[in-house]
């Protein structure tokens, strides 16, 4: 497969997803190019988390296609929609980093062991090398001084920074962030956002679901507004956040202006 800088890293086409009878995603189309930072905004229940979870196939979906780095996600390319199977799903997920609202670190492993787990157990990197790279990543998120602590001994902001390092350790093509600061005390939000800003500046491809309007305005290359399972509006933050084209986005912005 040949790829150029303008090829999308993530490509979502006509994505439909239902939980039983409830249709949550009603035809999502989204391309994310290499190095692009896409911030997804939208009211609660609009399907933001579900969309992110479909991209690394934590959720199955009924129709549409997703590719990451040209690889099909969840189902064979073509008309058959045959499930890929566990091994290939795992392979795709190696290239997709995901950071959760609730950190989800492994509490029985130290910070550095959390970060080394993926490289050592999935990529079969030698432990010494994985440790060295892991320490460098921890330094990058400002957590190298806690390498031998257990997650339970850390603040929420610290745990979240370790979770980011754990994802980065797999050297993913794209990072997905699902409201990663929503569970944090207000004074801890900044340290996590700062790490994310740094990643964006280094050229990491990112899809960020957040309620942090400031982050969207300052860091996003593109803002996507979702409501009711569809993308209602998208564009550069300077354009659409200043002058929303739709009433729905306008109302959403004015409701969240104080943030």
């Amino acid at each position, binding site marked *: 497969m040949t790829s150029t800088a303008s090829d999308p890293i993530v490509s979502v086409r006509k994505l439909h997803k239902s939980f039983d009878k409830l249709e949550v995603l009603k035809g999502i189309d989204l391309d994310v190019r290499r190095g692009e930072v896409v911030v997804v905004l939208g009211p609660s229940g609009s399907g933001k988390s579900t969309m992110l979870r479909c991209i*690394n196939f*934590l959720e199955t979906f009924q129709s549409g296609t997703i590719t990451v780095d040209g690889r099909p996600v969840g189902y064979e390319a073509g008309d058959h929609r045959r499930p890929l199977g*566990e*091994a290939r*799903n*795992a*392979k795709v*997920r*190696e290239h*997709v*980093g*995901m950071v*959760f609202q*609730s950190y*989800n*670190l*492994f*509490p*029985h492993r130290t910070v550095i062991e959390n970060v080394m*787990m*993926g490289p050592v*157990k*999935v*990529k079969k990197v030698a432990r010494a090398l994985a440790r060295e790279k892991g320490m460098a990543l921890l330094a990058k998120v400002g957590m190298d001084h806690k390498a031998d602590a*257990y997650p*339970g001994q850390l603040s929420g902001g610290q745990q979240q920074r370790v979770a980011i390092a*754990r*994802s980065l*350790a*797999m050297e993913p093509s794209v990072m997905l962030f699902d409201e990663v600061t929503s569970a944090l005390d207000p004074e801890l939000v900044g340290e996590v956002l700062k790490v994310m800003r740094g990643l964006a500046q280094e050229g990491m491809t990112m899809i960020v679901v957040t309620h942090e309007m400031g982050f969207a305005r300052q860091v996003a290359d593109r803002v996507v507004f979702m409501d009711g399972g569809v993308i209602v509006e998208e564009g550069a933050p300077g354009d659409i956040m200043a002058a929303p084209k739709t009433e729905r986005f306008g109302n959403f912005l004015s409701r969240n202006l104080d943030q």
Partner: protein
Amino acid sequence: MDVAPFISFLTRYWPVFVDGLQITAFVAVLAAPAAFIAGILLVLPAVSGWKGLAAVVRGFVELMRNTPLLVQIYLLYFGLPLLGIFWGAITCGVIAIALQHGAFLSEIVRAGIQSLSVRQWEAGQSIGMRRFAILRLVILPQALIKVTPALGNQLIVLVKDTSLVSAIGVMDLTLTGKVLIERSGMSFEVFIAVALFYLILTTSLGIAARLVETFVARRYA
């Protein structure tokens, strides 16, 4: 009962008791790890999503849990020869104990696994781990940590249950006691002594289990 005659009784038969104690400890040392491994193996089908095997295992676990251990020991010891399989008494006893306690342990471990958040699975998946690796490295260790007190409890029950192998002629502490009664006629003293030896075994295990619990609690709180 005076203490002095009891002490002299104990010293007189000490080597005999020690022989019995060794057999009891031997059976427990074989059966406990075997039960642990059986418990883990029995829980795998259900949590790995192997539906057919899980149903079979479920039936097996229910069967084991709901029939007396003594009956299972008899079944192996007197039943297997009818099939042309001749195993020694200790082998039959160890296997029966391992299977029944494995069944109970699998229920304990399963409860531990189910108490963990599905997010731990998802965190593992997100770094590209496969289901079995997540189970082995992320889920099982945490589940075992959670159920440490119950595991300690089950271990003590197992040690006491080894006394049932006396019923098929294994010369453990319990059978040693029976034989000594016939030899000495001091039934009360004998079983006080036997109970004491079991108590020493189980309380030291109980203390060890507590130590492990506190260590685990301090480290992973």
